[in-house]
């Protein structure tokens, strides 16, 4: 589909998010991701963890959102994806499908008159994700500055998937959870600890992996300090005391 036709299709679908020229704010469908992974393999980039993939992109000056533009959608994502870079990009793709198929199964149960293939077409070809290694240029001089779109980006996403079972051991992942879930925080909470589950993210099975913020790790040590500052700005009095 050409870009102009695609814009028309988005308009017909009633999409309420504007297209943007900033590739950091783009997204891609799971079909787009699968096709992009095919592109990687064709250019000799074999499956690896995402740390290795990012190094490969730096070595080859590859920026997927630029170099595989046709696989992408020039609008913010429906779903923001959090995962651990120790995952391979094959595993990430499978997990993304896993999350979508969870939604498919629920939709089929709730809307039995809609055919499974129609639901799958919608989820695979229209619902879009944001995945960092696609939309953040790993060759940028200051990768952290590239990430300054993160708050606006996550705020624009309608859903959040935390896909890898180790995500809660990584400080960046916890930070992304905090950003997404801020919209659901009670602005006038009762004193004391929370009385029920507060997270609205769809999280891969991983209870008990979280050992507290102190135990979360970053690959770059300075990032932990930066993220803690961001968290304290985000939740100035903690999640129970916003604005206090």
């Amino acid at each position, binding site marked *: 589909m050409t870009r102009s036709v695609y814009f028309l299709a988005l308009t017909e679908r009633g999409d309420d998010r504007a297209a943007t020229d900033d590739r950091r704010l783009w997204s891609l469908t799971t079909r787009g991701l699968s096709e992009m992974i095919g592109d990687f393999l064709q250019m000799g980039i074999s499956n690896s963890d995402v740390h290795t993939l990012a190094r490969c992109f730096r070595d080859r000056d590859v920026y997927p959102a630029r170099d595989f533009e046709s696989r992408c959608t020039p609008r913010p994502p429906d779903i923001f994806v959090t995962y651990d870079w120790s995952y391979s990009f094959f595993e990430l793709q499978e997990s993304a499908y896993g999350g979508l198929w969870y939604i498919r199964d629920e939709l089929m149960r709730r809307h039995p008159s809609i055919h499974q293939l129609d639901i799958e077409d919608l989820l695979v070809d229209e619902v879009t994700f944001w995945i960092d290694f696609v939309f953040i240029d790993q060759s940028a001089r200051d990768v952290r500055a590239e990430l300054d779109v993160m708050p606006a980006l996550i705020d624009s996403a309608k859903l959040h998937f935390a896909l890898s079972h180790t995500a809660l051991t990584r400080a960046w992942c*916890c930070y992304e959870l905090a950003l997404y879930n801020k919209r659901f925080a009670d602005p006038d909470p009762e004193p004391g600890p929370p009385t029920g589950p507060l997270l*609205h993210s769809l999280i891969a099975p991983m209870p008990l992996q979280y050992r507290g913020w102190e135990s979360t790790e970053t690959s770059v040590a300075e990032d932990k300090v930066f993220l803690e500052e961001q968290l*304290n700005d985000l939740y100035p009095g903690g999640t129970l005391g916003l604005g206090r």
Partner: protein
Amino acid sequence: MMQASLIYDQTLRQGGATTQTGHAIDQAMTVADGWLRQSGWI
């Protein structure tokens, strides 16, 4: 440890253990119904 992180810890511990059965599914299905509606299926 700073105050915000401590309370944020509580949120993660509680939400992370039980989220799949509650708010997260409701949120996901509200959004997914919106996708069906936008595409004309419902």
